[in-house]
């Protein structure tokens, strides 16, 4: 039931964003609002077992949702810019030292692992290659393995990021 | 301005699709050729209805502007969805043939059928 309500509100939010600027009730017209409610009910009936598969309702708190845009605009974006300059440098000079290393994190929830994996893929010269389903260790391909990193069996997650401590942000959001 | 380059491209695509159908012996490859041929025909129908400098046949601004012809688009629209269903049907034939004969090469199938 909670899953149904959560899916309903999320899909209603998406629908209202899609139809913003259509009328004069706020930004929406009356028929759009009615259709949004009906279609969101249909979506909730279809997709209620998918969105909240883990039955973990910690993310139902709206304050955590508001942190996600802050995370994306703030520390994540800075890291993205740095990573892209790094990739541009390596494309031009071809100075690479690749390898697959193992990174451990103490994140437990699905959303946390997901956000960490996507942040790793998009930011610091690394790509998530595989994930250990039990211990949640990530195997990542690093384009420039740091000196001495190839000898260590496991690297902590915050050692990858130099400018902002992204794992701490993710822990604040998702755990 | 473009002369009739799109039609030439349609002809080339049709020739490539026919070449795949005639010259290749693998059933799945032949069905890829059929889908290319279908796309070529769709592109031909859409290109027939194009007007130079026209806009899409949806009234976002006032009427009385030059609009692209709408009937070809309506015909193509349904044909694409039908195309995927029929290609699924063809591919399931191919899967059944593979189950029965152990190959998807049309020559070998013809020999095995004798």
């Amino acid at each position, binding site marked *: 039931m909670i899953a149904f309500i959560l899916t309903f509100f999320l899909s209603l939010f998406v629908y209202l964003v899609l139809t913003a600027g259509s009328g004069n009730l706020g930004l929406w017209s009356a028929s759009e609002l009615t259709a949004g409610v009906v279609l969101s009910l249909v979506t909730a009936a279809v997709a209620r077992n998918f969105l909240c598969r883990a039955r973990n309702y910690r993310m139902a708190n709206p304050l955590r949702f508001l942190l996600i845009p802050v995370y994306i605009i703030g520390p994540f974006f800075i890291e993205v810019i740095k990573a892209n300059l790094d990739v541009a440098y390596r494309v031009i000079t071809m100075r690479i030292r690749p390898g697959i290393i193992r990174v451990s994190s103490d994140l437990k929830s699905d959303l946390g692992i997901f956000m960490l994996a996507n942040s790793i893929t998009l930011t610091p010269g690394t790509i998530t290659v595989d994930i250990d389903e039990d211990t949640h260790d990530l195997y990542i391909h690093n384009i420039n393995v740091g000196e001495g990193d190839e000898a260590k069996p496991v690297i902590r997650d915050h050692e990858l990021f130099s400018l902002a401590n992204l794992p701490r942000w993710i822990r604040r959001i998702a755990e | 301005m473009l002369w009739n380059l799109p039609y030439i491209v349609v002809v080339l695509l049709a020739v490539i699709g026919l070449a795949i159908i005639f010259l290749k012996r693998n059933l799945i490859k032949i069905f890829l050729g059929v889908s290319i041929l279908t*796309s070529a025909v769709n592109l031909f129908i859409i290109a027939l209805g194009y007007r130079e400098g026209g806009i899409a046949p949806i009234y976002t601004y006032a009427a009385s502007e030059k609009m692209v012809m709408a009937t070809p688009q309506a015909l193509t629209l349904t044909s694409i969805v039908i195309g995927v269903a029929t290609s699924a049907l063809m591919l399931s034939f191919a899967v059944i043939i593979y189950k029965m004969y152990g190959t998807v090469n049309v020559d070998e199938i013809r020999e095995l059928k004798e």
Partner: protein
Amino acid sequence: MIETIIHVLVLTGLIVSAVLVYHFKDLLAAAVASGLFSFLISLEFYILQAPDVAISQAAIGAGLTTAIFILAIRSTKRYEEDAP
């Protein structure tokens, strides 16, 4: 002028991807090239001012056609053997 160049480039890409479908012996690569052909023909419909058809082709060609071909290749075999 630039519109014409874009148009010509997209049409060239269409022909090249179709030729690649003919060329590949690996059926998986041929299916990938066929997916690329679908994407480009959707872009071509978009340029020809047919957004309805472009949505249809994007949904069908981007997702379903490639998926169906991959499933069929998985059900049969991957490599097209050379005909004598």
